[in-house]
């Protein structure tokens, strides 16, 4: 599993490099930008593995409220976290735009349930501004990034990827 993840990440990295060279710019970082309860967030694309349409999950007893159970991802048992709930809102409602972003962090896979995926933002490395965001603790958000069309909050993977 982790092999595959690493391979994917390596590929993605290679691709990112190729794009950089092509555009003649240096050090673009890519972020997958998504929406949760109207808020716009991003995660480092190298920490994502794939994006799924919502699939049936099985509840895990005695798990935290934001944990929507586990899904079967090609034989892997992957927990799904409702980010809306995690961020303190109500549970999200499944719509045709709802997606599960499968992230690989600390050799574990976690699915993040988001309201919609918006874009892949390519932004220059180091342009993430470390800002205090009112209303959301730094536990979840480590800064803000700016794509061509929107500003997004960069998620702290350690807080959101690893379920309690």
């Amino acid at each position, binding site marked *: 599993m982790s092999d595959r993840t690493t391979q994917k990440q390596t590929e993605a990295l290679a691709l990112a490099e190729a794009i950089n060279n092509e555009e003649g710019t240096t050090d673009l970082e890519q972020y997958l930008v998504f929406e949760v309860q109207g808020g716009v967030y991003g995660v480092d694309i190298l920490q994502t593995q794939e994006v799924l349409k919502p699939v049936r999950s099985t509840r895990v*007893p005695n798990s935290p409220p934001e944990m929507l*159970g586990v899904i079967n991802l090609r034989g892997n048992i992957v927990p799904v976290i409702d980010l809306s709930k995690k961020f303190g809102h109500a*549970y999200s409602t499944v719509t045709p735009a709802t997606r599960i972003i499968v992230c690989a962090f600390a050799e574990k896979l976690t699915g993040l349930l988001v309201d919609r995926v918006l874009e892949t933002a390519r932004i220059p490395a180091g342009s993430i501004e470390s800002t205090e965001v009112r209303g959301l603790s730094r536990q979840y958000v480590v800064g803000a990034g700016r794509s061509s069309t929107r500003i997004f909050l960069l998620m702290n993977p350690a807080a959101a990827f690893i379920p309690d």
Partner: protein
Amino acid sequence: MDRYTELFLEEAGEHIETLNQVLLQMEREGGQAELIDEVFRIAHTLKSSAAFVGLEHLAAAAHHMEDLLQQLREGARELDGNVLAILFRCLDRISATVNRVAQGEPAQDHFADLIADLKQARAQGQKGKSEATPTSGTEAERPASASPNASPPTGPADVSAPQPPADSSGDATVPPTAEERWLTPEEERRLQTTAGTRPAYDGEVILDPDSPMRNIRFLLLMENLRKLGELFWCSPSEADLDAGSSADRFRFVLISETSRTELAKACRIDMVQEVIISEHQSAAGTTAGAVLKAGEETRVQTKNIKVSADKIDYLMNNVGEMVITNSGLLKIYEDLERDLGEDSALSELKSRIDGAARIARDLQTGIMKMRMIPVGLVFHRFTRPVRDLAAELGKEVRLVFQGDDTELDKNIIDALPDPLLHVLRNALDHGIEPAAERTAAGKPPQAQLTLSAYQGGNNIFIEVKDDGRGLNTTRILERAKSAGLAAADYRPASEEEVFEFIFQPGFSTAEAVSDISGRGVGMNVVKTMVQKFNGQVRIRSELGQGTSFLLSFPLTLAIISAILIRVGEEDYAVPLSDVIENLRIRRDEITRLEGRTIYNLRGEILPIHDLAALLGSGTGKSDHATEVPVLVANVGDRKHGFVVRGFAGKKEIVIKSLEQNYRNVRGLIGVCLMGDGRIVPVLDVQGLLAVAYGEEAPAHPTNVAAVSEYNDGVQVLEERRAGVGARRSIRERLRLAAGVGSPGPAGGTTTLLERDIEPVVRPEPTASDLSEWESPATVEAASDTIAEVPPDSAESPEEELSAALARLHADREERRIEALAALSVADDLPQEIDRVAFDKLYEVINAGMMNAGLVLSQLLGVSIEVSVPEARVLDARQLAEFVPEKQVISVWLEGSGDLQLDLMLVFDERNGYAAAGELMGLPAEDWIAEKIPETDLESVLSELSNIVGSSIFNALANKSGLDSQPSVPDFLHATSQELMDRFLRKHELKDYRIIYISTDFYRTGMELVGRLFLFLPRASVALVSERL
């Protein structure tokens, strides 16, 4: 760590293990030649492979070990305690270094002291034999140069002390096994010069002892070898062979670029018993150009290969996937069978699916067997620790193995050594008495410690049994009380209860905490490990007679039997090994006692727990039945009852860990996958009890409602997305509404129907709705396809249609000729249909179409009108003009019954997708081929045709009393030419009257144009005219 180091570690581990055993055997039985040879072989192999991965110090130590052993082989000195001690030290030091390397640390040990001792030991044994290999020089100056080379493991007592060069020895009468020579140092140097960068091989070919004319065979072999490279040296020499040497083995050194496998092949002449080829060992280690690991020997007869456990796990996972995929196929088959009924092609499909399922199961079993490893591998590891420990404690112990070929799952094998060591230590420390005490008790002074493994039922048992003093229950109880593990007034009900204390953390009866046992952790570790693998520990003990620890494990970890239960609205699995029985008990017989619910089960008090509450599953539909189902489980030798909602049968399951991507959950062992890919949690009854008794309060409010709401949302989405809803329910609905009998089961689909008839919530089409991401997308896919989806810039259907019509008119003549040529229709004009009859028919059709519009409107909850602006009678030659050009989507219905009448509905592609998309409730921008799978297109349009056809047939039946039924729709999505070919060639068109009906479907702001053709045979024309 590179691959070669990995291989080295793997191999070294085995060598160390063997070395350990052989040394112990030597200690017991003395230094027989085979044993010394074996140790020598191991030292030799370790030396060369260590050198290859850069562990020079280890290699040097192994080399000196070899030297010492060489003395023994030569009989230059006797095996004594001194030598054994130093050999054991070598073993320990080598083992330590290998372990360090395995942990990725640098090998710091320079072995200097050990090498000095080895040299000294050898010098003592020298006995003035100054002609033996000198021991002078430092490690750096003197690597493996003078070592005997690549002695074959099975070779009998090799003598590789310097000898005259083999080719100068003409002595062919000496028995061949008595004297075997390899290269002298001088020859060695010559070989290096000769070989240069080419690889050299040492080879040995042993003939069947009964084979006649051995010398001739060897001469033949020499010929073969010379074809492959330069034969540097051989024994017996060519001269000896010519002279009629009767040696049954032939050794050679060959310089050759050929692969070892090729070489081995060339050696396989007639009557050969064994071929051993290895890379030549020289001062420089391996010769350049050799890519294979030094010293590795190819045994042609090898049957076993080493495979990493990861690869097996990978296979296992994939086979699991395959089994699941197969059950998916089976489901499709069942759907098809329901829709289409019995069919020979379908039953063929079924038998193929069954076949594939069988193969998948066989594969699964086979791969599981690959995971099974003989337990002896673990057992033999204990020989040494037991010996050392017994010596340390001054006890005489004989360790006996039984059933060490019993196989156990690899995961258990890996986890077994530690707990087993604890049990053994415990037995040696506490169980077995010193010799004097034994003799006093009338027992033989040497104690027997038996380590046995055997299979019983679905379990593997591992037993550690001693004939020592047995467990002293009084003392255990005292200790338990003093350690605060039991109340002062505690009175045990049975011996077993007392024995349980041994497994409590913090329990130890050892008077003094020793290095060996008695640290109060050991036995606790045993229990934890065994339980982790779903096993159990039992103690049997008789005072003065001995103690036995019985560890039992399930046969294989990979698959266990489980009972499926329902709790609330959820399914869970419980390992069958935990379950004692299923009961139905009367609610009013459950009593409450001191806050606990209990039940009197045949005179035994059975604590009753509400599983739904423990799992936070919600109560589900509360039923007030007088009886409730109860699962009785065994927890630590006590029975507990768990109230469930129902039982759903027994199933073989594969437990998957939750820890891999999440964490362990109290009350769950893990999860398992059902045949359809669904995940079902597997309960850990022991852990549940901890929750039940409040040791571990449920930390979170239940999220059962949220998960079930999420799943409902997913289901709605999935039905719409996968077209299941579209396919199944539209089909059913359309059939029902059109008055055509539904072939499916009457019930079951109603809920689907109800849900689908509700107005579909259309998602707002967002440009950023990333459809490309939905497949098993990779990150790279994400990075380049997230471009904004451009708005649909194509022409509107109306514009498209008029453009198509314009083109149609432009090349109509050409197409007509083409079509005619294709059809070879006879050039006679059709008989005119009676004008009055035609008008009547038109009326009927119009009524039918209006009815179809009504049906559709009802079904889709939107207003749809169907009008028939034009109808005319065509002759076969005109047909082509009325078929849309390019790609068409068409459905053909054959009518049968009183009236023979065929019906064809044709759309151009754009209108076809629009019609299907509309019926499926997709947003307008999704009415394209990419969004509508062909299967959905087919089923939806087939149903539309069914509606239209049925309406017309019904109308006809009403007006004329001629009752007909449409056949199964025949769908075609192809070019108009193919349509002509496929549909129209079926009929002798000249025998048909074709009625063309332009059919428009209107929905608010939307117009869909289809064309309907009726094909009436002459006989039907007459009939219709007559009846109407």
